[in-house]
């Protein structure tokens, strides 16, 4: 092979690496830019930033999650809405790689984020998660702060793995949560002894009226 061809090969490898580094660096810059705008106190900066966040993709999720409990409720809300935009874009047909990348980032948030963030993330996963997400989501069925959101989110995911997760959770669940799990399992065609439905059982008393009991 002529020497210039070897050189060309080296040059093209370097060029490719440079392109990757450049695009990675551009992506990082784009995320930084998005985060800076989401932090802005100016609605006209922050608003369009979250509204246009759909294509920011998986790399933006963790930094945005860090703002989802920001002390400024408008910043927190904008961060949440930006993540929702990313999730819904990732759920488009023919974007499976993006969906998987987003799912991976969301699952990581279930480990270490405050309860309101974990609950919101569970609902995000409910829209795009596949069977690989079932076990980490089901782990939150044993956490009293998240178990109802986890139950609801899992209900949207098809497949026997979810039913199995509910069955396992039922075995160790606190008594009051067993009623909800029993209802869920019955809906999935499973037989559950005891724990009858409470859907039509009234519990809330009014203070209005002569008896003010019911």
């Amino acid at each position, binding site marked *: 092979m002529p020497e210039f061809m070897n050189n060309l090969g080296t040059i093209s490898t370097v060029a490719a690496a440079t392109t990757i580094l450049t695009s990675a660096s551009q992506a990082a810059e784009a995320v930084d830019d998005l985060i800076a705008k989401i932090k802005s106190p100016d*609605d*006209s900066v*922050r*608003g*369009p930033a979250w*509204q246009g966040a*759909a294509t920011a993709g998986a790399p933006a999720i963790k930094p945005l999650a860090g703002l989802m409990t920001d002390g400024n*409720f*408008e910043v927190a*809300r*904008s961060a949440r*809405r930006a993540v929702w935009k990313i999730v*819904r*874009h990732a*759920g*488009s*047909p023919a974007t499976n790689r993006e969906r998987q990348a987003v799912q991976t980032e969301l699952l990581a948030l279930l480990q270490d984020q405050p309860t309101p963030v974990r*609950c919101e993330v569970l*609902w995000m996963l*409910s*829209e*795009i998660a596949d069977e690989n997400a079932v076990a980490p989501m089901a782990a939150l069925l044993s956490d009293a702060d998240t178990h*109802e*959101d986890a*139950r*609801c*989110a899992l*209900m*949207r995911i098809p497949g026997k793995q979810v039913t199995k997760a509910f069955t396992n959770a039922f075995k160790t669940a606190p008594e009051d949560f067993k*009623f*909800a799990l029993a*209802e869920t399992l019955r809906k999935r065609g499973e037989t559950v002894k005891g724990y*009858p*439905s*409470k*859907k*039509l*059982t*009234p*519990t*809330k*008393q*009014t*203070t*209005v*009226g*002569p008896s003010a009991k*019911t």
Partner: protein
Amino acid sequence: MNNQRTKINRRRFLTVTGSALGAGSLGFPTLIPSRVLGAPGQPGANSQFVIGQIGTGGMGSTHLNNLLRFQKEGKVRLAAVCDCDDNRLEAAWGNTEQKATPYRDYRYVLERNDLDAVLIATPDHWHAVQTVHACQTGKHVYVEKPSSVTVREGQAMVQAARANKVAVQVGAQARTAKGAWQTCRAIRNGIVGKVSKVTCWHYDSPADNNPVPDSEPPEGLDWDLWLGPLPWRPYNRRYQPANFRWLMESGGGQIRDRGAHQFSTILWCMDADKQTSFTVEATGTVPTRGLWDTAIDMHAVFQFKNPDWTLEWGQPGQKLGKLEFGNVFWGEKGNLILEWEGGYKAANPEAQNFQMPPGGKEVYRTDEYEDFNMNHKADWFKSIREGHLRPAVDIEIAHRTATLCNLANMSMILGRKLVWNGDKQEVVGDAAANRLLSKPQRYPYCL
């Protein structure tokens, strides 16, 4: 289990007492649903419907006034009022001269075996759960529009109505209103020829320009019960009072509010209740800040096939009429405008004066009251009395209308066009969109 027990008890009650109690038992009217006095499952022609109202604020106050008027006319006995906000409940109870029993929890109302029916005027996210539960306890239902917030809820409502043999009327009143009826018969009988397009114009929805932080709920409001099926979150004044409409979860914006009226009228005029498949592509602008997340302005295009026609929702859209919102039927011989949805406003003079052509096909509507809110309820009562249980806006019709509203919102939030297969009740080739056809509900406030 409780549900089954309730149903069996009620049926047993109806069977046993309905045949055993004769005229001599009329000394106990408060314990007897009106249908006992007629044939089984069919109240007598002169019987008085015993009704409970669930949800008394907003449009609920109009319904309450209607029911009190029916009561004055001897057609109804309002036996229960229910609201999760004691402040509103107190006011409603006062309006009944403290004769109806007040409840906070709607399930107490459903437990009562002396009620024939319930009227539900709660925020949208409650409609399906309360309707299905009411059907399961054997009660006829009048429920505010839109019928549901998801497609699967709508399907469950239809199934519950049919399985329990009750009438479910949805409050899209235009189908019993004179203005919409005049427009309907004119369009169906060719006033503008074959219609290829219907456009809607509508003013913009509000943005939350005064966002506030979460706080404790006001005294008297049972926030847990207000949320009901929705995931729990702290109270915020921008949900309640009065603002539920501007949240996607609880209200769905103007397209699910006014759209439920306008689309219902349009489908009626186009004779398209059975045309259940379509494509929808929607875009909209959601406020940059604040709690409210429904579109301020929105454009949605629905394409129907066989026959082919297009339905366009526009905020603001192309305003051809004089009022805040309305519709234009575009035909091969011109166009016909319908201001609002043909309920509160009169039909266009051309429709009012339309002469039925030879061989023309008349359109039926109940015509007992000039006030279309009253007339719509009269139509519901009539469907029960006559035993056919298919009022003008039967739940199946309303479900189809709500599907248009809900899928437009879905298309907007997903940012893509959706192809809807009405036979299969699913979006074609879009797994993520299909997951949004249901929203799992918080226990025990669930279907």
